[in-house]
């Protein structure tokens, strides 16, 4: 079953959007024939493209401002300080990794994700994956720790989801601490759930 998993992933990652977009265009045309919404649909093309421009302008303010703040955190060493707080947890999850350098790469990746430094997280993550692959005894097959590491990235926690908050604030929506609690509870529990699932799978599938 796992032989082709990665090809499915590549298919989904790279070309899925291709199909999703074509699906949107074609299905909306077919749907409009049946529902008689053709006039709405043809108006929507120009109206929604305008909405796209509006959305990007809405997002731009937050994206630029927070990139600025995060750059300060990164260069002043605050990101590194944060990563020290995480290291006990990393030691538990990656108890089978002995190499300190690999662990610190993992740590910096997770810390960057939590702080919302997406652009910094990916290079750390790729280096960590390559380091984990070196320690991996099997060729072409992911090790237990690699699975756990990628899971921490796919179920990643972000302390302040800045883009979301920008969008909600500018649309005059509720944006209080309750929203953050909802997000933290959901993403943190999912992360724990995923890690436990990983440990269980390691037990039963060799």
């Amino acid at each position, binding site marked *: 079953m796992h032989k082709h998993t990665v090809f499915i992933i590549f298919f989904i990652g790279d070309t899925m959007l291709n199909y999703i977009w074509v699906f949107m265009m074609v299905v909306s045309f077919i749907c409009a024939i049946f529902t008689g919404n053709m006039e709405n649909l043809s108006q929507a093309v120009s109206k929604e493209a305008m909405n796209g421009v509006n959305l*990007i302008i809405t997002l731009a303010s937050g994206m630029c401002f927070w990139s600025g703040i995060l750059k300060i955190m990164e260069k002043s060493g605050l990101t590194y300080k944060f990563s020290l707080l995480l290291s006990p947890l990393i030691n538990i999850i990656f108890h089978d990794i002995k190499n300190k350098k690999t662990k610190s790469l993992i740590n910096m990746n997770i810390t960057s994700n939590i702080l919302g430094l997406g652009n910094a997280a990916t290079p750390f993550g790729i280096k960590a994956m390559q380091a984990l692959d070196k320690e991996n005894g099997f060729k072409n097959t992911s090790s237990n720790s690699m699975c756990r590491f990628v899971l921490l990235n796919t179920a990643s926690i972000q302390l302040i989801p800045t883009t979301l908050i920008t969008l909600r604030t500018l649309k005059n929506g509720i944006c209080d601490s309750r929203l953050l609690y909802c997000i933290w509870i959901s993403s943190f529990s999912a992360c724990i759930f995923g890690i436990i699932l990983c440990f269980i799978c390691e037990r039963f599938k060799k």
Partner: protein
Amino acid sequence: MNFFVPLFIAFTVLYALIKKENVFSLFCDGVKDGLKTTISIFPSILGLVTGVGMLKASGFFDLLSKYLLPVCNLFDITADIIPMAILRPFSGSGSFSLLNNIFESTGVNSFASLCASVMSGATETTFYTLAVYYGATGVTKTRHNLICSVSADVFSFILAVLTVKLFYF
């Protein structure tokens, strides 16, 4: 929230100043990076907002809601968030376009909008992440990774609905 964000910013800038960094020029550098990111996602945002808007205008979402209604009633959710749960693991820009659309059609503080907000804030573009990390190494057999990641996403979506109900409704 009102307290946390300003504190976070003030602390960050002050810390950098104490560390003798040129705070404002670092900030400006970061803003430039942010602008680059914004420009790089602009084409996909424009395309996907138009796509989602066209689906909406064609009545597709109404049809979908109609057919999903029994399932949604069973779990006591609204059908508006189903497309969000499907699109979110595949595309960040796509889910943001959808989120924007849900805000506009149901109001920014509706149950559907809040659920969709939590969903998009609490999860990642799972398939894209898997592709990037396994693409960087020579690994082709990912073992239990895919199933664990997708289960975690589903778990997170369920919790998103439950927490929004708990805190807001």
